[in-house]
């Protein structure tokens, strides 16, 4: 399960997606490597969602090639992607608020003991494991039995990330994890993102915030109207350039000129 740092996990080559006559994505190439964070930036409607939906198995690409572990692949369902170790944490779908933290952590993958029809939940074991795994990620909870809805948005994202890591994800796709969060909570989420990378996972970080991306990213891709506008490594760019690219480059200059009094 442990992949050495730098191993290519997912490779996309000129991938495109048409929804009928509408071309949502064209000629996108990217590589997700173990122990690296690949940031995908773009404005609303740039094709970010389409890209992750292809990787997580919700949609299938219509052109180009996607390779997982070097093998040409097309996922039929999110379950297939999960089985290959590709986990997606959606901003709004992460948790069930009224349920306890440990129940959320194990939801859908509950640990049971006993046999036959009288199998029951190993509640104590799951409580212990959830607490240990969260502690490994640096998350200390006052009470593993508290409803997860009592945690802040950032903390909920962190639990969802820790959960994906524990259940054997090799690739972690984070869909705008900081979009709805304040500065401080965003910082917490970014720390766990970095920690997932340090644990050897290949991370795909979707965001429209170049500041957040630049804090953790190893590789940056900027999408614009379904096409790649920028593709470079961290050493090849600085924050100002990234912000400029993200904000629309020349368009921003024009806008600045127009607004100047």
């Amino acid at each position, binding site marked *: 399960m442990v992949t050495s740092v730098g191993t290519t996990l997912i490779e996309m080559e000129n991938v495109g997606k048409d929804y009928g006559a509408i071309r949502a994505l064209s000629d996108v190439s990217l590589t997700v490597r173990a122990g690296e964070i690949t940031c995908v930036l773009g404005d609303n409607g740039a094709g970010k969602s389409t890209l992750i939906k292809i990787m997580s198995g919700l949609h299938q690409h219509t052109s180009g090639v996607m390779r997982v572990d070097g093998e040409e692949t097309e996922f039929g369902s999110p379950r297939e992607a999960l089985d290959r170790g590709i986990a997606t944490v959606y901003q709004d779908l992460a948790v069930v*608020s009224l349920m306890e933290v440990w129940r959320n952590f194990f939801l859908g993958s*509950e640990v049971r003991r006993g046999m036959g029809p009288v199998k029951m939940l190993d509640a104590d074991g799951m409580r212990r494991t959830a*607490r240990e795994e969260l502690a490994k990620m*640096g998350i200390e909870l006052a009470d593993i*039995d508290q409803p997860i809805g009592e945690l802040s948005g950032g903390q909920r994202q962190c639990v969802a990330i820790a959960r994906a890591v524990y259940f054997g994800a090799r690739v972690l796709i984070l869909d705008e994890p900081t979009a709805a969060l304040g500065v401080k909570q965003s910082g917490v989420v970014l720390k766990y993102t970095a920690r997932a990378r340090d644990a050897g996972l290949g991370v795909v970080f979707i965001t429209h915030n170049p500041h957040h991306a630049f804090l953790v990213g190893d590789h940056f891709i900027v999408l614009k109207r379904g096409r790649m506008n920028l593709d470079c490594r961290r050493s090849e760019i600085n924050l100002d350039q990234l912000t400029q690219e993200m904000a629309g480059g020349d368009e921003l200059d024009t806008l600045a000129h127009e607004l100047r009094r």
Partner: protein
Amino acid sequence: MSDVVEARPGPGPAGTGPGGDDGPRRSMLRQLFLRPETGSLVGAVVIFVLFFVVAGPFRRVESFATITYEASVLGIMAVAVALLMIGGEFDLSAGVAVTTSAITAAELSYQLTLNVWVGVIAALAVSLAIGWFNGYLVVRTGLPSFLVTLGTFLMLQGVNLAVTRQITGTVSTQRISDMDGFGSLEAIFASEWDIGGVRFRTVILWWLLFVAVATWVLLRTRVGNWIFAVGGNEASARAVGVPVAKVKIGLYMAVGFAAWFVGMHLLFSLQTVQAGEGVGNEFQYIIAAVIGGCLLTGGYGSAIGAAIGAFIFGMTRQGIVYAGWNPDWYMTFLGAMLILATLTNLYVKKLAARR
């Protein structure tokens, strides 16, 4: 509150919480407040004390047996309905479904002169099928279960009356007490026993058993986890691989099973069924579940709470009679109690969240 989670610079060793290996826990008081049934327990005690003081006959042991019996017939349904509501759905057909089940068993056995066991098993199949139908429609169409089961409710209400009148010429089924198999079934569904001259009924034990099983399933099994998840956030549950459709259909079938059980109890204790019975009971089941702490929106509640809710019903209905008040006030009293219980639940939840 916002800083319960602390970011640590490095990966800390496991179990480093201030409470030692077991981790810190909340105070007992807070744990109690967090239970869904707490509000209803307080309400039950208040109502018990009220009638104990104002109604002399309420203090007798026989009265307690009567109240518990009344609570058990309602309570078996309330437990199943509570599970369904925790799973995020309603069943308005639950009241008349009880009657449908009893009519099926009675008429099938009587008209074809079969052993009553055959009719009872056929009734079970019919009840489970009604549950499946409700669940399947809700899951497949995505329509609100309020509408879907309102439709089933009206259909069953009509079928109960029309079929019974067609077959018997009246609105009640024939007496089946002299038929083969009646004795053994009566022993299962409607037997009675004496403790010191007080009559207790077996159905009370069945009720307690169902409450215990439902509680165990909810809190200690994977299915229970799924029930809470499906009611709490259906999309999240689906995203982590919970079989949402199966859970919901299963819950409707559990209500079907309970309707069958109560239908059989009524059939074997009364020996005949009135075809118009059951209308309005569906709301009593829902009210008992809500008094017991179930949220109307799903994802929260308890089977024990629903049992306490049913007991509050029994105490109120009998208590009003024992106190010599006009029984017309029963519904008014009930409505006030429902509002009170809802407010208490709201208050308790707010209190729990603030600390």
